């Protein structure tokens, strides 16, 4: 609230006047000169001591009237209209957007949010309509445009908090749709949330209908200490022929005064296997590494739990692991290969922790059966196979296998290869004026994506002295070029697989890339890409949808994917104990992962020993409880044009509404003036009544009233 004429507030000094009048009791009526008051004073009076205020009511009325007059002349106005303008103009379409992300479970936030929503519903007029929209990662309209207040309240009572994070866009879009479809003259949106900034990116594209009153209700706490299991790294390695996993958890603590010790434990298949104590500094993080454990069974369920605090959902993180399968790489070299021609390739794949199995063989010993157990074939400086081998190789690639041609002095072009390779390669060329270097890398490509960031690998240090020319066909794609523009690496997709050509050797003969640090990750990325390798996904995030009919989405159960074949009916058991039927069908079978914990998918009526499981965790971004300014969001979703005035809730006002709004904001003085006049009239009546009560007072501080009529 502000004042148009604040200097009138000086008139408040006049408040002392009524007090002084009441204390001094100076007679303000007509003065009549009389020869002597001798006889009047002789009339017996009832005497009371003064120096105190006799007529508090009169004084209060006078002071209040003066106060109101001063306030009226000061012309108070509201900065904005707190009360919705449209609230008095007709029925309303009210949409309550209630955030039920798991961060609303912090303390008593959820109860407070429901209380506010209940107040909104209870304040509805019979002609109003309301909708209840739940906001999480997605949006759900539980009740839509109904006047049934009892149903709204009942729906609110049965509402429960979710396990997903806050994403404002879908819920606000849904609210926008409801409001746009409404024919009622007034529209209101009440957004009840903790307004986490992580769920807002500012370009949601939400724009409420013109004139919508937006009321953001912030549910927050002054202090939000919280600890979160932010992430878990599962390191896979092999030891004595067994696969071992090492779990490392990162725990983040937000807010606090002093370091605290928290207990964190590791569970496998429901059994607590390890417990550790971690010391968390205020607003800091700590890493806890558990002892390695052997992974022998598929669908091994694991959980890492932190002891409880105000927000429990982010204190645990679940995962599901199955024993991994190494990628098999077959390197073929010539009959009389150059010395160490495959040494660097083999070495790059050979490590105890590597997920590759590399086999180097002579091309003469290569048989088509080898392709059945191979993911990637590398033709290392050898002529392209011919005949049946070529056919099988083509089928291998078309079926999804990967083929890498490493060109050297023995590689030879022949007709027919242009239909299979990314381009025609020609003779070798020397870089006589010094070495060539890699001048272009297609960083968006999966092979080089890893090296896109600064400090992630320097290919320019490698010197290339000789390479084979490659004329890329239209079907081919250049992934790397030397600084003279010639092609270094090209790819062609064939069927489900792909063929790549590297125009220089993979040893230290034509270049020194093999001795550069970037060589090993480069080779790994090549193999991952060609072999379509995907890491196992140990968990999903609440709110994601899993297509159990997509084998690519279930790579970590590839060996048993037949269990989830489309021809078999399935049922999914949720962490909360519910079941979701997944009948046999052609096409995708989606499973919505809404709850935190483990989902089980099995054929109905069966109880397999190791059931297909999916771990679902909450979005850790939701545990960041920092709130944004609600008015920022309200202003962003309000529909407006240049020059439009915005109401208290961020609504845009029409010119008529603007004028009315301005009038309302400044019209308080009239009310004050009327009240002051009413008070003054009352004061007149009361003072006359008091006068007729024959109160008589002397100036010496005593008041006299006739003792008897």
């Amino acid at each position: 609230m502000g004042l148009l004429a604040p200097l009138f507030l000086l008139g408040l000094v006049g408040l002392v006047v009524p007090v002084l009048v009441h204390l001094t009791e100076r007679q303000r009526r007509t003065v009549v000169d009389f020869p002597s008051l001798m006889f009047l004073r002789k009339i017996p009076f009832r005497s009371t001591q003064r120096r105190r205020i006799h007529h508090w009511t009169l004084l209060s009325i006078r002071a209040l009237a003066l106060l109101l007059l001063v306030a009226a002349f000061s012309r108070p106005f509201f900065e904005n209209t707190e009360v919705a303008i449209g609230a008095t103009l007709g029925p309303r379409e009210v949409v309550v957007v209630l955030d039920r992300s798991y961060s609303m479970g912090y303390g008593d936030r959820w109860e407070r949010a429901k209380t506010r929503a209940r107040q909104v519903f209870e304040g509805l007029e019979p002609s109003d309509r309301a909708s209840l929209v739940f906001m999480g990662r997605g949006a759900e309209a539980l009740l839509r445009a109904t006047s049934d207040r009892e149903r709204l309240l009942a729906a609110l009572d049965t509402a429960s908090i979710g396990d997903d994070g806050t994403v404002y866009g879908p819920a606000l879009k849904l609210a926008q749709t409801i409001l746009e479809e409404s024919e009622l003259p007034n529209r209101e949106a009440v957004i009840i949330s903790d307004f986490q900034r992580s769920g807002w990116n500012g370009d949601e594209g939400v724009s409420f209908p013109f004139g919508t009153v937006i009321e953001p209700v912030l549910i927050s706490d002054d202090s939000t200490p919280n600890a979160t299991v932010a992430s878990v790294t599962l390191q896979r390695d092999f030891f004595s022929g067994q696969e071992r996993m090492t779990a490392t958890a990162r725990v983040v603590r937000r807010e606090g005064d002093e370091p605290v010790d928290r207990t964190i434990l590791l569970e496998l298949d429901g059994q607590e296997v390890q417990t550790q104590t971690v010391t968390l500094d205020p607003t800091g993080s700590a890493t806890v590494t558990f002892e390695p454990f052997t992974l022998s069974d598929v669908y091994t369920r694991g959980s890492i739990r932190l002891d409880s605090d105000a927000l429990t959902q982010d204190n645990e993180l679940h995962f599901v692991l199955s024993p991994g399968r190494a990628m098999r790489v077959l390197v073929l070299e010539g009959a009389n290969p150059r010395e160490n021609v495959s040494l660097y390739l083999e070495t790059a794949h050979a490590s105890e922790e590597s997920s590759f199995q590399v086999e180097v063989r002579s091309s003469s010993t290569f048989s088509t059966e080898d392709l059945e157990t191979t993911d990637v074939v590398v033709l290392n400086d050898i002529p392209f196979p011919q005949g049946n081998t070529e056919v099988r190789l083509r089928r291998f690639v078309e079926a999804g296998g990967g083929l890498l041609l490493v060109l050297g002095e023995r590689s030879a072009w022949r007709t027919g290869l242009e239909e299979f390779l990314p381009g025609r390669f020609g003779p070798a060329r020397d870089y006589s004026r010094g070495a060539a270097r890699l001048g272009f890398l297609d960083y968006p490509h999966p092979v080089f994506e890893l090296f896109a960031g600064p400090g992630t690998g320097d290919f320019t240090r490698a010197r290339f002295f000789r390479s084979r020319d490659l004329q890329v066909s239209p079907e081919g794609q250049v992934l790397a070029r030397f600084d003279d523009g010639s092609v270094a690496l090209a790819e062609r997709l064939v069927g489900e697989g792909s063929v790549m050509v590297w125009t220089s050797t993979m040893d230290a003969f034509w270049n020194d890339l093999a001795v550069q640090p970037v060589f090993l990750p480069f080779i790994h990325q090549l193999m991952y890409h060609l072999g379509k390798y995907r890491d196992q996904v140990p968990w999903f995030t609440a709110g994601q949808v899993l297509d159990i009919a997509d084998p690519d989405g279930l790579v970590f159960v590839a060996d048993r994917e037949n269990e989830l074949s489309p021809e078999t009916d399935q049922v999914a058991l949720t962490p909360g104990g519910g079941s979701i039927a997944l009948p046999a069908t052609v096409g995708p079978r989606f499973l919505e992962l809404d709850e935190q914990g483990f989902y089980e998918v099995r054929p109905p009526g069966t109880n397999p020993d190791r059931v297909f499981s999916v771990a679902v965790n909450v979005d850790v971004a939701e545990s960041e409880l920092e709130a944004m300014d609600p008015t920022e969001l309200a202003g962003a979703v309000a529909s407006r044009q240049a020059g439009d005035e915005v109401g208290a809730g961020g609504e845009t006002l029409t010119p008529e509404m603007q004028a009315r709004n301005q009038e309302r904001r400044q019209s308080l003085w009239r009310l004050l003036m009327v009240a002051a006049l009413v008070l003054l009239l009352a004061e007149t009546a009361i003072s006359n009544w008091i006068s007729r009560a024959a109160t008589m007072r002397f100036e010496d501080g005593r008041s006299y009233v006739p003792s008897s009529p």
Partner: protein
Amino acid sequence: MAVRERSSVQGANTQFLDPVVLSRIGNLELLARTVVDGFLQGLHRSPHLGMSLDFAEHREYMGGDDIRLIDWRLFARTDRFYIKLFEAETAADFMVVLDISKSMSFGTHSVTKLDYARYLGSALAYFSQKQKDRVGLATFDHEVVEFIPPSTRHLQRILHTLSRAEPGRPGTLRDPLMRIGENLHHRGIILLLSDFYEEPQAVIDSVRHLRARGHDVIVFHLLDPAELEFTYDSAASFRDLESATMIPIVPDELAVEYRKLIGEHTQELDRLFTGSRIDYTVLDTSKPLDYALFRYLSSREKMSRVR
């Protein structure tokens, strides 16, 4: 000397005694003459009424007496020398003592109490002058303001002083009357005009010493009709003219009480003055002056008889 009842003199000529009419006469001497002549004319009596020619007694001639005063007829019968003594054989001192305190300026019609007193004082002074009396004047409030000793030549001065007398200060009776009494060396008639806003006992104590000095005292208590009846009807602050003190008054509630008090006051004054052989008369300033004049003449007659 016969004094008629007041009711018998309310004739056509009384308009010359109406204070309202008199207030239009600016010259006080003319006013006094109009009053006195009109008044006397209405009585159908000689203007020499009251002259001191009445025989009082005889006494034996003593050496040094004027032989012209010897009653030769009585000498013829008794062969002794007696001389005649006449009543009021010499002119009396007539002193107008006028209260000009602030309260005397009060009046709810065209004539204030002081005006009324002025008219009355000048008229009686003029009348006394015509009686060959020596007339004097004293005005006072809380002290003596003007003092004109009795003399046969002071009438003009008296009238002039009366005309310019202005009320302005609070007044008391005791000290001024004491001082006036000390300055009157011959016994005479003192006409005291005041509103007597003091306690009755204090008033009589102040006036009594004049009587004790042998003066004949005639007291006119001048009151405005509003002082007598308290005819106010709306609430107001009443301010004391002398002390300027104000009190809020609701007349409806107080009028009865006030009238009772003022009645008791005048009755008490009447009782005390009568007890001291002082003529006391309450005069309503809205009434004509004839009543006052009759009261004066009546008092003079009583005094002459006593003497």
